[in-house]
Structure formats: structure tokens, C-alpha cells
């Protein structure tokens, strides 16, 4: 009955057709790159029993189990669900939200990426749209999670303020800064704000906490890294609260939903229409409208 299989419908449940007739690679739901040890055990058992005893790690922190027989799909999903593992999605909808380990784990992190990835996942995962739509969250300017290659990328940063009274003029921050935004004059540090990229290396390195950092979200829009490559662009200043962040991400996704043609990626919509419309919408959202 292979001719009656609706692969578009199966893709919603993360089942990717294979070259081998009747088999597919089953994509699993992973948020922010984390799975529990018990979930991994379940995945392992399912891959042994129903697949070929191996899994494939995807480029976006997902796991797929290849060689699942389409006739056993329901059984496989039930076995996964019993072990707390959900299936992922493919096709024209919001995909896996990726994240680095963020400030809870990584010394470089400026934001709690995993919590944010879970929140984005709850808010958007699987939402039907004209084309695929990817969110990626990275904790700092090291950009391990490649924020700008996503339709909406979120990167942690800090807005910085100098507390002169605490500064001992040691000069560590000047060397830690990678954008030459800092210099020293009369034993005190001078900041060139036009050069600061909010990386917070000064905050992280200062031995006396003379740099005060307020964490924030640097958001990029319209990135893509497939057939066509484009680096997402920052259209609003660093965002310091989640309420504003979600207002801005809502605005971006709504703009895409309202303006994209079917099967048109976000970047292509922006190239067809120009980015003025999106800029206006996300800047209004940023301003609280």
C-alpha cells in the first residue's frame, strides 16, 4: 500500500522519506540540544529494535533514527512516547529551536539560552507557515550556535556601564576587548560606544567588577544557510527584557505569515518586497506598539 502513503502528512511528524522504499528516517524533537540520559536510552532501544542500530545527528542538534519501516511508524512513535521522546517536524513550519549551553553552564554565556529555547519552542514549535522557519539561540558573541544563519537568531550580549570608582586601571579589559572599543587615559578606561559589540568580555574579565553588564538579546532576521546563503540582519537595538523580545519575534513571524508566498523562505520574501515593511513592524514591536 506504499502508493497511498502521504509523505507530506508524515513530514509533519518528522518522518523523512528514504531512498529505500518503505523506509524513512524519523526525526526526534530536541529542544536546545538537550536530551535526558533516560530519553537517550529510549532512543537507543528504538534504534536497535526498529531501525538499524544507529542514529544520525543532524546539523541542527536533532537526532534521526534511519530505516524505520513506515508500517511500524505508529508502534515506533508509541515506544518513543512511552520513554518521553517526541517526534520532530520537517516541512513548512517552525523547526527545532537550537541553543548552546548558555550562561547556566558556559563561562562566556550572557543569557540563559536553554530556558529561552524552551520558551520559544512552547510558543512556536510546529507552527504552520509558508515555508520552514528556524530559531537559533546563542549565548554570546562567540556564536557557537550561529545565530545569523537562522530566520530569527538570538544572541546574548550585555549593555555595559563603567564604574570608575571600582577601576584599578589594570588594563585587562583593554586586551580582552576584541573590537578595540577600549583605551586608557590617565589611568581610567575610555569606551568608544560606536565600536562596542556588547560581547561583555570586559565585564567577564574585569578583576574588580568595574564593568557592570546588563544582559540582553541581540536579534537577527532573515538568515539562511542552505541553497542560498545570507547572514541575518540586526534591525533593532539590543533588547533587555523578554516581553519585548517576544513582541519582536511575534512581529517577525507574523510578517512572514502575512507576506510570504507559499514555499518562499523569509529571506526571499524580504528580497522580493524589500526589508522596509519588516523593519517598520519589528521596530514598532520593539518600541512597545
Amino acid at each position, binding site marked *: 500500500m506504499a502508493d497511498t502513503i502521504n509523505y507530506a502528512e508524515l513530514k509533519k511528524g518528522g518522518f523523512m522519506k528514504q531512498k529505500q522504499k518503505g523506509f524513512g528516517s524519523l526525526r526526534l524533537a530536541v529542544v536546545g540540544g538537550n536530551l535526558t540520559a533516560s530519553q537517550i536510552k529510549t532512543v537507543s532501544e528504538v534504534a536497535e529494535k526498529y531501525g538499524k542500530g544507529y542514529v544520525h545527528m543532524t546539523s541542527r542538534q536533532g537526532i534521526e533514527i534511519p530505516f524505520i519501516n513506515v508500517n511500524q511508524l505508529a508502534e515506533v512513535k508509541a515506544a518513543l512516547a512511552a520513554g518521553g521522546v517526541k517526534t520532530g517536524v520537517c516541512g513548512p513550519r517552525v523547526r527545532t529551536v537550537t541553543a548552546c549551553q548558555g550562561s547556566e553552564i558556559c563561562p562566556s554565556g550572557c543569557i540563559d539560552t536553554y530556558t529561552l529555547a524552551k520558551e520559544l519552542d512552547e510558543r512556536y514549535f510546529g507552527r504552520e507557515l509558508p515555508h520552514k522557519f528556524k530559531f537559533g539561540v546563542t549565548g554570546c558573541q562567540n556564536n557557537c550556535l550561529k545565530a545569523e544563519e537562522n530566520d530569527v537568531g538570538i544572541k546574548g550580549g550585555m549593555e555595559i556601564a563603567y564604574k570608575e570608582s571600582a577601576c584599578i*586601571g*589594570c*588594563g*585587562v579589559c583593554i*586586551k*580582552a576587548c576584541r573590537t578595540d572599543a577600549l583605551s586608557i587615559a590617565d589611568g581610567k578606561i575610555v569606551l568608544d560606544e560606536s565600536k562596542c559589540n556588547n560581547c561583555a*568580555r570586559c565585564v*567577564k*574579565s574585569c578583576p574588580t567588577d568595574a564593568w557592570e553588564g546588563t544582559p540582553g538579546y541581540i536579534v537577527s532576521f532573515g538568515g539562511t544557510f542552505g541553497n542560498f546563503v545570507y547572514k541575518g540582519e540586526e534591525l533593532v537595538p539590543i533588547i533587555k527584557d523578554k516581553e519585548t523580545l517576544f513582541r519582536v519575534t511575534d512581529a517577525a513571524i507574523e510578517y512572514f505569515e502575512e507576506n510570504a508566498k507559499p514555499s518562499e523562505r523569509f529571506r526571499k520574501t524580504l528580497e522580493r518586497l524589500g526589508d522596509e515593511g519588516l523593519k517598520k513592524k519589528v521596530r514598532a514591536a520593539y518600541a512597545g506598539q
Partner: protein
Amino acid sequence: MAEIDIKYDDFVDITDKVCPLTFVKAKVAIDELEDGEVLAVKMNDGEPVQNVPRSFKEDGHQILKLYDNEDGTYTLLVRKVEE
């Protein structure tokens, strides 16, 4: 050479090491000091000077000063702080 105007108890040169051995060598040196003693660490420009001071801070030690030796190296003065 910059004039080092802080008294130190030990000196270690990590300009001959590459990451991660730069910090390993510096860490071994500070581990051998007593609480409150000061270590001078000579390091190269670039990654070492961007990261070694911060690594000391993350380990809880107190950075006193960073001297630019004006020859592509820096000397960091750091006071040992026991856990």
C-alpha cells in the same frame, strides 16, 4: 620592558606555550604559592592575554595589574586567593 612596581613571590613565563598549556602552566605555578602571595606571569599578546587574566578571575584569584612589555608580551600580576 615596563617597570613592574609590584613585589611578587614567583615568576612564570608562558610565552613558550600554546593554549591550553598556557593556562595549565600558569595554574600549576599559582597552585604552588601560599594564600596571598603574588605571581608574575609573562604571556604573549593575542589569545593568552585575552584569556589568561579572565581564567584567573574565574578561579577566584585577584588580578593586580597587567603590564605591557612593549615587545609583544605582557606581564600579569595576580594574588593567590585560597578557596
